[in-house]
C-alpha cells in the first residue's frame, strides 16, 4: 500500500530543485522581500543600515508589535479582528506602571526596589490582559456582537481606562529589573549569547532530523539526504549569524571605561563588551515557539484553523466555537500585556500615548505576513516577518531622512501592495 503511494509522486518532484528542498516558497518570498528592503536602505544610507548597531535596534523595536501580531494571527484566522490591541496595551502598562510605583510599595511590607515587585507586576499585568481579552471574546462569542464593534468600542474604552488610572500622568521611573525587558539595558552579553545560540542551533538541527526519522517510520516520502542536510546547514548558519551580529555590537568605550572592573576587565584599554541577545528578543522567540506549537501541534490550534476555514463544519464536528473565541481573545490580551511590558520597559516609563496606532501596525504585520482576512490561513513566523519588514521600512526611511508624511504614505502603500502580491501568489500556486 505504502510503496504504491510513494512511487507515483517521485518522478514529478525530480524536476524542481525547490520542490526537492521542500522549502516554503512563501517564507522564501518574505525573506527575499526583507533582504531587498535591507539592501536598498543599506546602499541609500552608505552602509549605515546593515551595521550591528542598527540591526540590534531594529530587533528590539520590532519585539512589542511582533509579540502582539502572533496573537492577531489567531484572531484573523477565525475571521475576527481586534482593533483594541494598542489601547489594551496602554491599559496593561498603566496597571503595571501604577502597581510598581504606587500600589505595591507599602503593601505587605514590599518597598520600591524589592525583588518581588517586577514579577508581581508582570503577573498581574498579564492577568489584566487575559481578563479584558476574555471579556471581549465573550461579547463576540457568546453575545454575538461583531468583533469589529466590540474591539472598536474597546479601542476607546481601554485607551481611556489607562488614562483614568494614571490621571493622564507619565508613570516612572520603572523598576530596574522590569526595565531589563526593554532591550538595550537588558542583554545576555557575548558568552551567554553564544551558549544560547549554539544550543538553539543544535536543537533546530536535531528537530529537523527527528522529523525526518518520524516520516521514515511512517513510510512517508522524504526529501533526499543532501536536501535535508542543506536545509539544516542554512538554519544553523542563520541562527549563529544572528548571534554573531548581535555580539558584534559593543558597548561604547567610554561607558565601559567608566567602570571596567564590573565588566571583568583588568584595565580600561582594550576592554570590549558586547551587548549580545536582548532579553526582549529571547521573549519574542519564546512567544513565537509557543504560538507555533499551539498553531500546528495542539487541538486548540487545529480547532482555530478549522473554525476559520469553515465555522459550520467546526461546530458540527463538536467544537465549541464560542469558547474558542473567548480563548483566542484572552490569548491576545495576554500578548498585549507582554508587548506592553517590552514597550514600557524600553521607554522606562508608562506614557499616556503608549501603543497608539499599534492596532494598525499589528494588523498590518499579520496581513503582510500572509494572514488572510477571509480566514483559515496564517502563520506565526509570517506575522513576525511582517512586523520586521514594517519596522525596517520605518527605521530605514527615518535614517535616510524621508519626511514624516512620506514615511506613512510609503508604509500604507506597501501594506496594500504586499497583500496584492500575496493574492496573486495564491492564484498562481493554486488555492491554498
Amino acid at each position, binding site marked *: 500500500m505504502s510503496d504504491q503511494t510513494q512511487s507515483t509522486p517521485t518522478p514529478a518532484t525530480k524536476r524542481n530543485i525547490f520542490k526537492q528542498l521542500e522549502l516554503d516558497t512563501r517564507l522564501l518570498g518574505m525573506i527575499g522581500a526583507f533582504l531587498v528592503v535591507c539592501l536598498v536602505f543599506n546602499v541609500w544610507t552608505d552602509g549605515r543600515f546593515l551595521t550591528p548597531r542598527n540591526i540590534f535596534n531594529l530587533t528590539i523595536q520590532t519585539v512589542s508589535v511582533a509579540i502582539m501580531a502572533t496573537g492577531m494571527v489567531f484572531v484573523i484566522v477565525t475571521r475576527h479582528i481586534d482593533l483594541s490591541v494598542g489601547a489594551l496595551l496602554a491599559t496593561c502598562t498603566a496597571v503595571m506602571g501604577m502597581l510598581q510605583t504606587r500600589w505595591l510599595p507599602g503593601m505587605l511590607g514590599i518597598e520600591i526596589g524589592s525583588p518581588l515587585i517586577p514579577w508581581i507586576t508582570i503577573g498581574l499585568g498579564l492577568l489584566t490582559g487575559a481578563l479584558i481579552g476574555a471579556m471581549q471574546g465573550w461579547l463576540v462569542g457568546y453575545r454575538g456582537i461583531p468583533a469589529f464593534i466590540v474591539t472598536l468600542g474597546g479601542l476607546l474604552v481601554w485607551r481611556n481606562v489607562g488614562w483614568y488610572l494614571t490621571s493622564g500622568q507619565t508613570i516612572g521611573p520603572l523598576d530596574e529589573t522590569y526595565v531589563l525587558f526593554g532591550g538595550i539595558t537588558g542583554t545576555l552579553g557575548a558568552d551567554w549569547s553564544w551558549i544560547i545560540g549554539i544550543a538553539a542551533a543544535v536543537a533546530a538541527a536535531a528537530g529537523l532530523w527527528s522529523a525526518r526519522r518520524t*516520516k521514515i517510520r511512517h513510510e*512517508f516520502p522524504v526529501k533526499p539526504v543532501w536536501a535535508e542536510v542543506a536545509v539544516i546547514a542554512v538554519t544553523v548558519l542563520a541562527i549563529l549569524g544572528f548571534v554573531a551580529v548581535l555580539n558584534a555590537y559593543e558597548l561604547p568605550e567610554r561607558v565601559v571605561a567608566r567602570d571596567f572592573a564590573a565588566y571583568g576587565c583588568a584595565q580600561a584599554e582594550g576592554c570590549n563588551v558586547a551587548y549580545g541577545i536582548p532579553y526582549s528578543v529571547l521573549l519574542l522567540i519564546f512567544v513565537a515557539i509557543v504560538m507555533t506549537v499551539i498553531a500546528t501541534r495542539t487541538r486548540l490550534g*487545529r480547532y482555530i484553523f478549522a473554525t476559520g*476555514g469553515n465555522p459550520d463544519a*467546526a461546530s458540527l*464536528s463538536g467544537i465549541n466555537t464560542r469558547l474558542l473565541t473567548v480563548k483566542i481573545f484572552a490569548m491576545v490580551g495576554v500578548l498585549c500585556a507582554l508587548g506592553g511590558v517590552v514597550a514600557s520597559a524600553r521607554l522606562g516609563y508608562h506614557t499616556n500615548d503608549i501603543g497608539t496606532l499599534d492596532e494598525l501596525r499589528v494588523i498590518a504585520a499579520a496581513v503582510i505576513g500572509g494572514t488572510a482576512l477571509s480566514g483559515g490561513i496564517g502563520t506565526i513566523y509570517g506575522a513576525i516577518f511582517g512586523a520586521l519588514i514594517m519596522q525596517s521600512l520605518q527605521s530605514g526611511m527615518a535614517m535616510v531622512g524621508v519626511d514624516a508624511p512620506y514615511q506613512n504614505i510609503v508604509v500604507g502603500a506597501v501594506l496594500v501592495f504586499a497583500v496584492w502580491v500575496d493574492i496573486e501568489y495564491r492564484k498562481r500556486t493554486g*488555492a491554498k
Partner: protein
Amino acid sequence: MTTPLVQMKNISIAFGGVHAVEDVSLDLYPGEVVGLLGHNGAGKSTLIKILSGAYKADAGEIWINGKKVDIQSPRDARANSIETIYQTLALADNLDAASNLFLGRELTTPFGFVDDSRQEAETRKIMARLNPNFKKLKEPVSALSGGQRQSVAIARAVYFKARILIMDEPTAALGVHETKMVADLITELKKQGLGIFLISHDTREMMELCDRVSVMKNGQIVGTERVEDVTEDDILSMIILGKNPKAAA
C-alpha cells in the same frame, strides 16, 4: 421483531413562529436504509439535524437501541455512534484530509499534541479501502474533487464505526461515476448492519437504495411506505399533493 436502532417519537421544533417539524415519528432498524423525501423546506434536514445534535427539539423523544437518550450537541450524537454526512459536506476547506477526518477527535501523542503522522497513516489506510484513487493527502481539501471530498466525509463515518449514518443528499454534487461509488458504499454499509437515513431529491435513486421511504411536507410526515409497495408515481404524488394515495384507497 428486533429493537429499532433509532426511534424518534413525536418530534417538534419551531423557529420563531414557523413549525419546521411538527409531531414527527420515525424509526430505523439495523441494516435498513430509510429515505426521507420532500420539497425544499419540508423539514427533512431539520429533522435529521435534531438527531445529529445540530438542533435541539422543542418536544419529543429520541430512543437509541431501546434506550431514551438526550442529544444536546453533535458530541452527544457521536457518543451514540451517530455520524452525519452533510449536504454542505462539513469539511474545513483549508485543512488536509487527515485533519478533517479526525476533526474534533484528534489522535494525540502521550504529551497531548496532535499526532499528525499517525493521523495521516490511518487516513492512508482507510482511504485505500474506500477510494483507492485517493492520493492527495497533503493538500487542503479545497483542492479535491467533489467525489474525493465526499469520500473524506464518508471515511469519517466509517473510521469511527458509526452504527447510525445520516446522509443528507450525499450525491448532490457528484458525477455519474462517483454517485455509483456512493451507492455501492451504502449497500456495503447496509450489509454490515448499519442503519442509514438518506435524504435525496432523486426519487429513482431512492427507490433503488432504500428499504422504506418517508415523505414529508410542511414539517409533517405524509406517509411511510416500503418501496416494494409503492410506485415512483405514488411517491411523487405524496411529495406534491401531500396526501398518501394508499391511505385514501
